[in-house]
């Protein structure tokens, strides 16, 4: 595969021609405008894209992998939080294991497709582990963000097989989000349509957790 030099490879990854067609549709249901957005990228993901092949799908997979690294690391540290209820501790173990499976599957897939998996980012979760409440709120942030990140990126995946796999992952993220919200006495489904976020919006949201 050629090492194409592009002015902004990350933009190539998140532009989809057909998305710009002025088709109809559920306006207002989705933050549709957001899907088209393509602004500046943070260094971490610049690195992610630079390491990948020029295939858009691999770039999306590496974007997803970065998020999964964060989630897996978060639950791993979360297992040490003192005073977790039995219910929440159980979710930490199960959900953390599932995020790690996502990491493993994405890395293997990227490698199989001829790409190079990005490295795990250095993380800093601040005082997220100071109490069960703080932990739960951060977990909700991560899981909701994961849902919106996959929902925003998935329509740009070219391979139908990878799309199905991403769908299988995003549903699990949604299940995590709802379960933790419910355990915290919060609304498990705050909206009838989960919002989609652009890559840029997602990266902005995770920025506080990068060391």
């Amino acid at each position: 595969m050629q090492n194409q030099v592009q002015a902004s490879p990350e933009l190539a990854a998140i532009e989809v021609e057909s998305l710009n067609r002025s088709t109809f549709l559920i306006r207002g249901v989705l933050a549709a405008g957001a899907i088209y957005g393509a602004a500046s990228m943070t260094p971490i993901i610049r690195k992610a894209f630079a390491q990948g092949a020029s295939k858009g799908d691999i770039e999306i997979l590496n974007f997803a992998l970065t998020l999964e690294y964060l989630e897996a690391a978060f639950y791993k540290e979360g297992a040490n939080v003192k005073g977790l209820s039995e219910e929440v501790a159980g979710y930490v173990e199960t959900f953390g294991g599932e995020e790690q499976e996502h990491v493993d599957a994405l890395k293997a897939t990227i490698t199989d497709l001829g790409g190079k998996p990005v490295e795990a980012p250095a993380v800093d979760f601040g005082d997220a582990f100071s109490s069960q409440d703080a932990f739960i709120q951060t977990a909700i942030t991560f899981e909701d963000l994961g849902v919106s990140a996959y929902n925003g990126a998935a329509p740009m995946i070219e391979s139908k097989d990878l799309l199905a796999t991403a769908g299988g992952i995003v549903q699990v993220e949604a299940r995590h989000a709802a379960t933790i919200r419910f355990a915290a006495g919060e609304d498990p489904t705050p909206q009838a349509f989960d919002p989609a976020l652009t890559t840029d919006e997602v990266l902005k949201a995770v920025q506080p957790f990068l060391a």
Partner: protein
Amino acid sequence: MSNTPRKQSAVTRLARDPVSRRRFFALTGGTTAAGALLVACGDDEEETATGTTSSSSTTDEEMTSQFGEGDLGIVNYALTLEYLEAAFYAEVVKSGLFKGDDLALIKQIGAAEQEHVDALTATAKQLGGPPAEAPMAKFPLDDAQSVLELAATVENLGAAAYLGAAAMIEDPEILAAALSIHSVEGRHAAVLNVLTGQEPTPDGAFAMGADMQTVLDEVQPFLA
């Protein structure tokens, strides 16, 4: 092929888990871009690709014609399921079996399903419709516990249906809309699973999709 330890362990896991194995094969050995790329790279996983023949593809094509062709067919298939869900929750609310928090949750889930019905109806029209009509439905509403269990079944099925259909959607905007509904069905399913003492993620780390025939067979008992 150089097997890194990481990859090895993933393969080991897959070997003892038929569900994940199927997904893995779909992922790495499919007949579309991924499979072609593997072959082109001379990767010795070609035999994986050989083993991926989907047993459901023919069925999916047949069932699509029941609802119409292409994206309109898929939208009407989804609309039919959402009609069933919305009708179910409306009856559950009326049944008087639930109070307090449980009733509030059921009302909220039902309202979301109705919003899905409205959105999909509008979408079908914009695709040149007509939208599917609401099916006649009947549900056993014996007691609170069995109703919650049925709700969990319905939501898990709904989530699997969207997941199974997503890859057949051609228009990216319709796909984006379907995905925004799909994850909400997943949320509903998880909460109802918790309420009925089941795992919130019963398929583990990778949710499984269901093809149209499987889904329609499952809902058949509820069609009047």
